[in-house]
């Protein structure tokens, strides 16, 4: 009886070691797939849902160059995107360099079975911990939950379509903590409904989301840095 238990324990340990190795393999394979995308240009629709930012859904051209250059061009219009550290690219939510990858079970996202892998970077960077929900069949990331040093928790949800093979999403939604915004009313001299009594703000960060819908990609055309340095 004791022998049986010892065998079972050994099997469990071997299985755990094997799956840990698998998790690393899956992560590195996924990251390598993404590294193949050096740059892209995409026609996009941007929808911002942040309490204090009111901007209609806009169309534009999004330029991306590895590792972290991104620019939204709107034909002379104003564009609003999260700051560089929260790049609208899943690749930037995956730590660079060596990592420790751990299995964290399975979950179903939009009807798809996703393997959850927790990734802890070995190097010190902005990312502290990244949790990835991976579709192993298509080898794409369905969701990321990244704890960053500067921006707190950033959640990214992705949907795929025509560019699944390249690992590029059709839709990407970033959920993030947004700091409160306040200007002195005496300076802005706001017009509000005079009969409406406004509740004072609590000053706590609010959840916000930015959704990018990619309409068409042009991949690896060799974008130069000048595209990103154009006058703001």
């Amino acid at each position, binding site marked *: 009886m004791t022998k049986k238990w010892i065998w079972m324990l050994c099997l469990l340990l071997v299985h755990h070691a094997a799956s840990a190795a698998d998790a690393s393999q899956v992560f590195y394979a996924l990251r390598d797939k993404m590294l193949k995308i050096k740059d892209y240009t995409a026609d996009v629709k941007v929808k911002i849902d942040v309490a204090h930012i009111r901007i*209609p859904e806009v169309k534009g051209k999004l330029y991306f160059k590895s590792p972290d250059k991104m620019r939204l061009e709107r034909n002379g219009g104003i564009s*609003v*995107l999260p700051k560089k550290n929260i790049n609208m690219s899943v690749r930037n939510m995956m730590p660079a360099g060596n990592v420790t990858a751990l299995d964290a079970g399975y979950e179903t996202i939009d009807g798809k079975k996703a393997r959850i892998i927790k990734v802890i970077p070995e190097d010190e960077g902005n990312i502290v911990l990244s949790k990835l929900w991976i579709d192993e069949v298509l080898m794409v990331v369905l969701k990321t939950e990244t704890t960053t040093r500067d921006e707190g928790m950033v959640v990214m949800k992705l949907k795929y379509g025509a560019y699944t093979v390249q690992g590029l999403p059709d839709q990407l939604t970033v959920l993030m903590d947004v700091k409160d915004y*306040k200007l002195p009313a*005496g300076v802005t*001299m706001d*017009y509000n409904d005079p009969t*409406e009594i406004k509740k004072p703000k609590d000053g706590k960060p609010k959840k916000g989301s930015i959704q990018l819908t990619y309409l068409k990609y042009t991949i690896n055309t060799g974008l130069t840095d000048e595209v990103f340095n154009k006058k703001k």
Partner: protein
Amino acid sequence: MIKLLRIEIYKIFRRPRTYISFGIVLAIAFIIQLAMYSGGKDFMSFGMQGVTEQFDVQGNIINGYLVTYIILQSLLIHIPLLVALVAGDMLAGEANLGTLRLLLTKPVSRARLVLVKFVASVVYTLLLITWLAVTALLISLLIFGEGDMVNLKSDAFIVLLKDDIMWRYMAAFVFAALAMTTIAALAAMLSAFADNSIGPIMTTMGIVVVLTILTNLELPMFNVIKPYLFTTHMIGWKGFFDDPVPLKAIANSAVVLALYTVGFLGVTIAYFNKKDITS
């Protein structure tokens, strides 16, 4: 009636001070345009700090639409003064010159005379607002070009798409004309009480300044009276640059301003009808 109106309009535009008003509007627009041309970026960077801390805002922010919006802020204090300069002189100026009694010898009722003079003031006000629209909007668009417009509220950062702005300006100018008509009616009422135009002009400005301060003070004790102050509603034009546009609140403000205008005019007619004209 039309002939009398023509005469009153002629009287307004015969005086050099009328043209000084148009010159002042041009100067206000020019100074703000110059300031925005030289330091607009720093000005906006300061205002947008709360947003740019987390978001990257790109594009031509300092454009004609934004500069026009900043110029229109002068509607709060400067333009009422220019309107009061003419409307405050409406009856008191005649009394001061000693022509009021002569004017009343004409076969025109006192009420009609007040109305004609008020309409003439409104014509002047409308021309001043049109001039403001030309100098602020057209010249700013020529200098800075067009683009999406950023509107900074105390609790919101609003971006309006460039194809969705021009109608807002047209509506805002119409609303501004209504607000300035209320100022004209106030100045006209005070003008009926006085025999010298300096008094009504200064009193109009005093009322506007004090009530504007009350409107903008975020103190609970003033919140009760704010909805009843006409200065609270005078900035209703700003509502057209909100998203979504608070149409109900704007309509409410327009009604309040119209009621104030009618009220001021009613008091003017009632008082002037009984006034003993000695000059």
